[in-house]
């Protein structure tokens, strides 16, 4: 059974002059996911988000927003595209009115967002006087006006200091838990690995890899078993299975071809009544998969 999607791109091609920004790109963004768009500069991440927003149109292929109206999509651009003369509260009220809010409901929603995003103190600050971190929060606040079902975040961590990045990650996770679908582009693989449920890797406008994050990271032939105290003689019995098995006080490591003896080791441990506290099967890192996909 296929997952319900909010974005469905099929063979999308977008050119800027002779340069192909997207080349027959097909991908689906499942509803409720945090979908990370990865790729080197010029891979087509921002172009894809602008196509979804309807700022650009594909030359070939179709891009379906699955019936989501504009008010149900919030967008945070990668650069500070804000009218510099307006103050933070004025700007949020302007976007809120365009999102269909008005009167007391608009004022309440703006106030809630100012509070939630720690912008209360900056409500009367002109946008031209806001720091990068403040503008990122203003961007998120305006995107959340109208309570959209989907958020498009273009490089949301760009220019933020470590604490700002941590806060942004926490907000993304909170929004995900509240049921929103989030599409974000990023160069920061550790952020993506922490917050995304799905990932698409682009290379020269083409889809290099796509899927659930856990499915994208292949298992490595390396197993680590954390145990409780082992009876005397059991470590040597385990080593006798294969001399390559490493047994320390409470940890057994099977690396390389030896990892295939995992079942035998577990059988011995369970047979001896040993408490198995943790079994870790090592996976490739996102960085390894990314580099392979985008440079291979």
């Amino acid at each position, binding site marked *: 059974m296929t997952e319900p999607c909010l974005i469905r791109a099929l063979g999308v091609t977008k050119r800027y002059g002779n340069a192909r920004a997207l080349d027959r790109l097909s991908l689906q963004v499942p509803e409720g996911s945090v979908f990370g768009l990865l790729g080197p500069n010029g891979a087509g991440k921002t172009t894809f988000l602008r196509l979804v927003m309807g700022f650009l149109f594909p030359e070939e292929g179709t891009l379906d927003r699955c019936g989501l109206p504009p*008010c149900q999509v919030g967008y945070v651009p990668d650069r500070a595209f*804000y*009218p510099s003369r307006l103050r933070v509260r004025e700007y949020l009220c302007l976007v809120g*009115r*365009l999102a269909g809010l008005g009167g007391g409901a608009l004022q309440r929603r703006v106030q809630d967002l100012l509070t939630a995003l720690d912008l209360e103190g900056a409500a009367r600050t002109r946008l031209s006087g806001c720091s990068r971190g403040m503008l990122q929060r203003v961007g998120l606040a*305006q995107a959340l006006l*109208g309570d959209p079902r989907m958020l498009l975040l273009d490089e949301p961590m760009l220019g933020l200091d470590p604490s700002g990045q941590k806060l942004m990650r926490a907000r993304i996770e909170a929004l995900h838990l509240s049921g929103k679908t989030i599409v974000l582009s990023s160069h920061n693989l550790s952020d993506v690995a922490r917050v995304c449920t799905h990932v698409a890797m682009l290379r020269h406008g083409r889809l290099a890899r796509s899927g659930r994050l856990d499915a994208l990271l292949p298992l490595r032939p390396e197993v680590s078993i954390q145990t409780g105290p082992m009876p005397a003689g059991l470590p040597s019995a385990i080593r006798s299975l294969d001399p390559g098995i490493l047994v320390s006080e409470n940890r057994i490591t099977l690396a390389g071809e030896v990892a295939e003896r995992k079942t035998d080791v577990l059988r011995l441990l369970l047979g001896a009544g040993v408490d198995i506290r943790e079994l870790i099967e090592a996976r490739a890192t996102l960085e390894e998969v990314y580099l392979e996909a985008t440079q291979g």
Partner: protein
Amino acid sequence: MSRIWVLTGYLVRALFGSLAGVAPLAAAVTFGLIAFEYGMDQAQLFTVGGLGIGVIGFLATLLLAGKADRAASYLLVGRLRSRTELLAAIGAGGWCITWALALGIVSVNLLAGRLTLSWPSLLWLVPTWSVLWLLTSALAVALSGLVSRGASNLLGYLLLVVILVANDRQTELLERGASWAVRIAERVTWPVGALLAEASAGVHGRTYLLALALVLFLAAALFLLAAYLFRDKDVLWSE
């Protein structure tokens, strides 16, 4: 509809909050001083005021379109159900600015005793100028860089200049045997010419109403053309 007025307010404020906002004000002051220098009666006001202030309104609408044609509009356009709402906001803004400038010019010259008006025929100013300035606003939207595809706006300006020159140089064109050009120019400019001629003469019969309807139709056609051009245009704005 409310979104259009919200955007109109934002764009007008953005225009007059910037240096560009001085241009329509300066043009209005200049026009008010020069055109009314020797006084003006109501008939002249209908035609000279209508066309002169209409040109200033055209300029103001172009400036509003320029304000919309920048990266700060990304997040606003993204909220609209249709891009046509942005064009409607620009057109409405230009029309409102034109009326505001007209009221200012007329009031100042009236107080200065340089304008003679008669009541209640003066009320015919409202439909005459409203429709005329809908045309100038729609023309400006259609000729703006915001909606232009390729060099469509340059082609539009060229066509406009050719029509205006042909209309102005009718005798020369007839002498050179280009009567077809004169006929085309006459037909294109007839609605505006007839509207102002009838209004300034104080005649509001069938010709006036036909001209009024045709000017309105032209304005609608130009606006629809602009909407068609802008509907699926890639917008690549930068600051």
